[in-house]
């Protein structure tokens, strides 16, 4: 009992606080550091920022990323634990590498997610993947560049087609979770674009039509899915009630 209490104490009073502090410092530093390439193009290379385009791109980009800011911590926290989350957030590629590796390592070591042991094991596992992944990326980036320099422009340009293929792939990945919402928002996305293309919305000032084309499918999807889920819950409650 006493030993148990001591162990619990070590994890909560020594291990966690020190790592949380280190993590917070490095993550805060990284937030500013990642803007250095932008500042360099501006002040070092004299490329004047196009603020209107930057604001537009930022709005689109944040809308794409926003669901991840919320969903990733919720979905992965039980596997990562507090300390694993800190490394995972900085290193990225959670869903397609760090989390699967952490789960495999937890299983191999025979510990359960959500426990102190699980947190410790996943922290070691996630940290270890950083060295492997960055090592492999570095090899590819150096070798890949040499190959790319030898390829004709037509081939390198067709590599850009990976982008729309990826967009299609991601939509397909999430479609299975909620088919009605997927159909609904795709119809809105295409519909509003067709309407916008006819020019009937050109009276909207400040390029507002682009904003509408972007926000309508997103909020349409959220409202649609919310109501569907609410109805599903109400139905469950009714059928649950009659059974009782």
């Amino acid at each position, binding site marked *: 009992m006493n030993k148990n209490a001591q162990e619990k104490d070590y994890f909560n009073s020594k291990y966690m606080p020190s790592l949380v502090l280190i993590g917070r410092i490095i993550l805060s530093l990284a937030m500013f550091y990642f803007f250095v390439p932008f500042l360099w*193009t501006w002040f070092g290379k004299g490329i004047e920022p196009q603020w209107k385009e930057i604001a537009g791109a930022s709005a689109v980009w944040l809308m794409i990323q926003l669901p991840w800011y919320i969903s990733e911590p919720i979905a992965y926290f039980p596997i990562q634990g507090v300390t694993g989350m800190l490394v995972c957030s900085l290193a990225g590629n959670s869903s*397609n*590498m760090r989390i699967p590796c952490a789960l495999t390592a937890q299983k191999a070591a025979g510990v359960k997610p959500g426990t102190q042991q699980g947190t410790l094991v996943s922290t070691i596992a996630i940290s270890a*993947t950083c060295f492997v*992944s960055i090592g492999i990326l570095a090899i590819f980036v150096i070798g890949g560049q040499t190959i790319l320099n030898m390829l004709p422009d037509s081939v390198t340009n067709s590599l850009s087609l990976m982008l729309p293929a990826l967009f299609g792939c991601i939509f397909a990945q999430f479609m299975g979770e909620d088919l009605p919402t997927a159909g609904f928002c795709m119809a809105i996305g295409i519909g509003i674009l067709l309407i916008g293309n006819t020019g009937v919305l050109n009276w909207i000032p400040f390029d507002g039509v682009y904003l509408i084309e972007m926000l309508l499918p997103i909020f349409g999807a959220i409202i649609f899915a919310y109501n569907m889920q609410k109805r599903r819950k109400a139905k469950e409650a009714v059928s649950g009630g009659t059974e009782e």
Partner: protein
Amino acid sequence: MSAELKELVNSPFLWVITIGGLCLVFGLALLFIIRSIKAAPHVGVTKEQVNTTLKTACVSAIGPSVVIAVGMISLLVVAGAPTALLRLSVCGNVGYEVQAVGVAAGQFGVDGTAASLTGEIFQTAVFIAALGCIGYLIVPVLFVTKFDKVIQKVGGKDMTMMMVICNAAILGCYAYVDAPYILRMDNSTVALIVGFVVTLAVQQFVKRTGKKALLQWNLLLSMLCGMLAGALVG
């Protein structure tokens, strides 16, 4: 891509920044490994378990890393080597990082190909990539210790609702991103549709055979098939 632009995106200064960024990740990872190994006996994790963890994690990371590295090539073409390496070694996800250039280019009225890239598009892309990181970093910095409590409070049915809403938001985003490609009716439309169909096929295959390892290759497979199909048509 002009020679001048090629020089910009592969500048030695960007390499220095990239190496600095990688040092941040390595430093954090190394400190966490050392402290965790030190704490292991106090928490009831044996030396053997630590060794198993290190081995399993390293071996498991090889496959996904290669997938990410191949996915990185499309970013390499448009954003240059140092930026591609930095972006895929820090916050975010290969699938999303690759799109930063496309989103930036879209604001300038062109597509995100190497041929249409300009210094301004590159600058906008590195700006939004950095901006996108803030969300990933600020959530753990501010809330990491409170997460345990919040997770338990949210729980139950509300958790399902939260997941439904998150999923819907992602679908809505991609409906918006996909729609222009669908209406374009050129080789990029073919690439999108093939990427979509291949993913559905992979999901069905995994469902029937239970070979979940294939899911790790899903993204790469869809991207390659989509690109090939698009290139053949174009």
